[in-house]
Structures are given as C-alpha cells and as structure tokens.
C-alpha cells in the first residue's frame, strides 16, 4: 500500500463524487478531474490536509469552447497530484496566489497566452508577450494562426489598414512608468548589460546605494516554443525542445522524452537510462563550473572565471567525444539513446574526472578561505527556509536554505534510483551557502559519474518507438542543474503532440530574487541574480516584485529638481545649520 494509494483512498473517502475516477497512472502520479464549482474545496483539502505544499505549475489547455486548467501539486515525497478542471472561455477563475504567491506568474501566462480571466491577479508587467502585442490575440488558442502577423492581414481582421505594430517606434519600456520614490534614481539594468548573459530588464529604484525597489521584465527570450511544438512531430520536437536553453539542453530533452515514453508505455533498456544519467551528470558538472566562473565575474574576480572555464573545457571535450557536439547533444530519442559509450572511452572519462576532482577541491578551499570572496558572498541575498517554502524556490537556491528538495531523490527518473549520492544542503541561507552547495554537488556528480560508468549494464541502447503516440497525458520532472524542471505533454493519437508545457527551474527562482534584494546594495544585484543561476531563455517569465506606492510620473526640470531636493532635505532636518547626525547603517 504505497502512500500514493493512501492519498487516493483519502480523496475518495472525502469526496464521494470522485469515487473510482482518481487514476494512479504511474507509481507517483495521481490524476483526477472535477467541475470548477467543486474545485476550490478540493484544492484547499489537497493543500491543507494532504500536504501538497509545492505548486509545480498550472497548464492551460484550449478545449474547443471551454478552457481546461491542470494544477500540478507536488509533495516533498515526490508524489504529484494533477487536478484537471474546465470553465467556459469567458468565465473568470479565482487566483490561487493566496495559497502559493509564486502562482501569479503561471496565471499571468494563462492570461497572456490563452486569454483566461483570473480574478485577484496583482497588477504587473506584461508577460510573456511583447509590450506592443495586441491584447486580444492569444497565440496558444487552437484557432489562432501565425499568419495573422504577416504584413497587412492583421489590418483586414481589424478593418483599418493598420500594420502589425512591429515598427521601431517608441516602445513603453519598463522604466517609463515610475516605480520609484520621490528622489530615487530609477536605474535600468536593461536587456544589454555586462552582468546579464541574457536579455531581461530590471528597473531598480535606488536610494543612494541601497535598492528601494526592483521591477523585473522578462519575455525578451520568449520565442513561442510551446506553439511551435504543436505544429511539429514528436521527433522534430526533440530538437526544438533541446534548444530551449543552451546550458541545460539535456535536461529538457530527457524530461520531454521520458514523458512521451510514459504515454506510449515504452520501457527503455537499462543501458540507455544509465547513459542518460551519465550525460545528465556531465552536464551538471559543466553547468556548475560555468556558474562558478560567472559568479566570480559578477563580483569582479575574473581569475576565477578564467580558471573554472579552463577546467570546464575538459568536460566539453568529453561531451563532444561522447555525443558529437559540445552543447545541444541530441543524444536522446524516443525509446532510448542514439549513441553508445564504448568501453575504451570509459578510462579517458575517469582520468579527466579525477583531475577535475583535485581542481574542485582547490576551489572549495578557495571559497572557504579567500577573504574578499567571502566578504562579497556571505550575508548577501538571504532567503530563509520559510521564504523558500512560501515562494517555491527550487534547486541549489532551496538546498542552500536547508530545504532538501531534490527531484533525483524524491522522484527518481532514468537510473537515479540505483545511484548512491547524498543531497547536499547548507544552512547559510545566502549566496555563500549556494556556492558551497554547488561545489558539493560537483563532488557528488564526479563520484556518481564514475559509479555509473563502472557498473553500466550491457544490452541494447534503444527500443523501436511508434510514430503515432496513443492519446494520453503525462507529467515528468527532472533535476536540472538550476532546479526542478517540469514537462507536461498531452497527446491525441496523431503524429503531433496536442499540448507541450515546459516550466523551467529559473521561473520558480525568480520569485525569490525580489525577496533577496530587499534593502541590499546595488553592488549586490548582479551576484544575487547570478546566484540563482538564471537561465532566462528557459524561462522568459516576468513578474513585478516590489511595487512602491505608484506616484504618477512627473517630468521635473533641473531647477525644480534642485529646489525640490533642497526643500526635501530641510524636512529631513539636514540644513547644516542644526546638523542632526544620521544613524550610520
């Protein structure tokens, strides 16, 4: 009687209309369907009594005349409860941000892409579509077609000959409306900024050197991959899904492929799952080394960038040897793996991993002793354990605040059930703790890769997969280097998937960035943002974080700005005649 069955019993006992309709599709996956009026009570019961304390994501479906919503709730033990419900297209649904504050991103995405109406959603920046995208166009609707965007055709639909607004005109950027206080400086850390490897736009309200408020606008990387997946076959989708993000491409393709295999009921050979695990750990090694370098660069310690990326090249060579390409390996296929690891490659890999183990020990010693490094990292970007649980942070960000949330342990996939490894947690709750966790995970990955290479079973590496996947749906979770990555796939028996939903780990972590930036210095913004190891091309999500009382924006000329500040300082009592000593922070 696994605990998934006990939960099934509890649900059917509490709600008799659910009798027999709760489906246990896989060992840790519960599916159930309910009408929207009974949904609130069921949701409250699941979150409060059954202990589903983590909201993976909300998937929106276009089902002809009404909109389907699937709420994926997860338990620390790894069980995922998927609650399906549906409403008419123009019927509003109630926001669940009361239970999960991080839910507002998923709801904002429903509003933008599917035209859902959500009551109680806090006002914020538009996401994920561009600012000039017309409000009534919903790309993820089945009847919507990209041809609308061609020149002119947009005009016919709207009568007047207006061209789809993509011309270079003054776009209302995030900084044009004021989020700042009276005399704050609104600094745009814009799409092009040396600290950001990818385009996203922070507008930071500064009071001197202190951060008063941060507004994060993403969506610059939104390419519409989910819509693209619906127009391509399953096999073509592997190569599209793999290019969501350059650093964790294996994560996305493995999660996607294992979900499709679960729907098709394919059982992949043992050797294939071992090869997937090895490539997964090699990718985690190169991603963590990359992060170590970027973190060093963000705090001005470029030597760490040069050293860690020099060592990373060794791993890139191995990945190129194993899979043929340094990044975007393309080793997964539905039903198994495309290339085998030959026995003579194994000693080469183990030799390189041993040299890297020495080098990582040097980095661990460096992180524990280098004074300026510790000064810049400790006490920065603090995130307490309660905040992690409330905001739903995942991956090293959560584990550094002593929350042992690791999908490899809770909900093992590929060959992680037989891998001996321990979840690294740390109680520093700050960027320093995240550095320690990532370095610890590097050491774990080294030992795991060696273990997997040595006792990898023989046998075939893939199984024949049907071109048409039978109708069904599946949720797969994967522990990407940045955190938990969730894929939901719905198939309708044809060659193309009906719906592909990707929730990247950085999306869950961006919620926590605002909490970490409260009352910090501007100098800490790059390292705090880098500490969650953001991969915005996975995410292209956006939220508004701290919103000071929104004063209408008044353009001040230089003169009245000066008079204003002199008078403002007089109110503060700083008019030099009777100097009052300000409290030194």
């Amino acid at each position, binding site marked *: 009687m696994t605990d998934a069955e006990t939960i099934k019993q509890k649900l059917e006992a509490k709600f008799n209309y659910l009798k027999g309709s709760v489906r246990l599709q896989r060992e840790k996956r519960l599916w159930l369907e309910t009408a929207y009026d009974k949904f609130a009570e069921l949701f409250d019961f699941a979150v409060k009594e059954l202990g589903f304390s983590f909201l993976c994501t909300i998937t929106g479906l276009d089902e002809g005349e009404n909109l389907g919503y699937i709420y994926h709730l997860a338990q620390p033990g790894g069980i995922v409860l998927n609650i399906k419900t549906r409403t008419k297209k123009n019927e509003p649904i109630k926001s669940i941000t009361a239970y999960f504050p991080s839910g507002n991103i998923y709801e904002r995405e429903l509003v933008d892409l599917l035209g859902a109406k959500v009551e109680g959603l806090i006002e914020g920046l538009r996401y994920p579509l561009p600012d000039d995208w017309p409000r009534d166009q919903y790309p993820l609707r089945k009847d919507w077609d990209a041809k609308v965007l061609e020149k002119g055709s947009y005009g016919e639909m709207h009568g007047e000959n207006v061209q789809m607004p993509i011309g270079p005109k*003054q*776009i209302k*950027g*995030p*900084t*044009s409306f004021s989020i700042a206080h009276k*005399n*704050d*400086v*609104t600094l*745009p*850390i*814009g*799409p*092009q*900024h040396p600290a950001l490897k990818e*385009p996203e*736009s922070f*507008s930071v309200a*500064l*009071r*001197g*050197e*202190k951060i008063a408020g941060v507004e994060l606008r993403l969506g610059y990387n939104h390419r519409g991959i989910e819509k693209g997946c619906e127009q391509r076959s399953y096999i073509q989708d592997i190569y599209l899904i793999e290019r969501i993000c350059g650093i964790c491409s294996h994560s996305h393709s493995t999660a996607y492929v294992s979900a499709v295999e679960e729907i098709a009921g394919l059982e992949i050979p043992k050797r294939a799952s071992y090869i997937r695990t090895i490539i997964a750990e090699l990718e985690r090694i190169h991603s963590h080394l990359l992060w170590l370098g970027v973190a060093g660069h963000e705090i001005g310690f470029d030597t760490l960038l040069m050293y860690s990326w020099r060592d990373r090249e060794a791993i890139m060579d191995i990945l190129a040897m194993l899979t043929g390409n340094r990044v975007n390996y393309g080793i997964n296929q539905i039903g198994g793996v495309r290339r085998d690891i030959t026995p003579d490659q194994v000693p080469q890999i183990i030799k390189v991993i041993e040299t890297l183990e020495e080098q990582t020990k040097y980095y661990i010693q460096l992180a524990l002793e280098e004074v300026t490094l510790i000064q810049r990292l400790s006490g920065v970007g603090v995130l307490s354990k309660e905040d992690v649980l409330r905001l739903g942070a995942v991956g090293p960000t959560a584990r550094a605040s002593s929350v042992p949330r690791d999908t490899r342990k809770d909900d093992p996939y590929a060959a992680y059930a037989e891998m001996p490894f321990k979840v690294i947690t740390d109680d520093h709750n700050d960027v320093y703790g995240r550095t320690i966790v990532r370095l610890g995970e590097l050491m774990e990955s080294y030992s795991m890769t060696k273990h997997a290479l040595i006792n990898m079973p023989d046998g075939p590496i893939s199984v024949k997969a049907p071109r048409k996947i039978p109708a069904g749906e599946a949720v797969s979770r994967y522990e990407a280097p940045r955190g938990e990555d969730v894929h939901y796939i719905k198939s309708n028996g044809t060659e193309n998937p009906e719906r592909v939903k990707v929730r990247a780990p950085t999306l869950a972590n961006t919620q926590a960035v605002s909490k970490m930036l409260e009352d910090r210095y501007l100098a800490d913004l790059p390292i705090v943002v880098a500490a969650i190891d953001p991969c915005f091309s996975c995410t292209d999500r956006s939220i508004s974080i701290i919103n000071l009382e929104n004063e209408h*924006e008044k*353009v*001040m*000329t*230089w003169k009245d*700005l*000066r008079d204003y*500040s002199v008078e403002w300082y007089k109110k503060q009592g*700083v008019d030099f005649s009777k100097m009052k*000593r*300000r409290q*030194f*922070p």
Partner: protein
Amino acid sequence: MIILTPPIVFIILLAFSWLLAMASSIVAFKRKGPIGALDKPYAGGEDVKKHRVQPDYSQFFPFAFFFTILHVVTLVLATFPVGSLGAFVVAVVYIVGAMLGLYILFRR
C-alpha cells in the same frame, strides 16, 4: 628657471593637450549617414527619460565631514615650521585627536 614652476608648467601643458585634442579630431571618422539614436544616453537598450538624477548618498556624510576636518588639520600641520619641538607636540595631539575621532565614528 621660473618656467618650470608648477603654475606655468600647468598652463603650457594645458594648452598643449588642448591643442593635441583638437588636432586629433582630424583623424576622427566623419559620419555620412543619419545619426539615429546615437546621441541618446545609453540605458542598456531602454529609452529612459529621467536622466537628471540626484543620487542620495547621505549614508556617507559622516565620512565626508570627518575627511574634510582631518584634511584641514593635516594642511595646518604641514605648514608648521619643521623641526621645532612645537611641531612634535602638535603632531602628537593631531594623531591622538584623529584616533579618537575614528573611534567615535565606528563605535556608534
């Protein structure tokens, strides 16, 4: 050789570097096409309107006052006739005063 006294050397070199700056503008590239957003201030790609800003660095005011006071006292000390016993006493008093000021600044 009064020509080598600081003010005269400063003026000569000022004129020289200003001439150098003007002369090197003949080498600069002459643009033919339209300027576009060339002279708009850089804001990471965004088109930000509020540039006239007055950052509030009041957090460092105590250091600024301490710096000016100490600076003036150092200058006074520098103009003292060197070698006399008085200079020695004043120097010691100055150092003790500075150490005391530092202690107060950091104790609070």
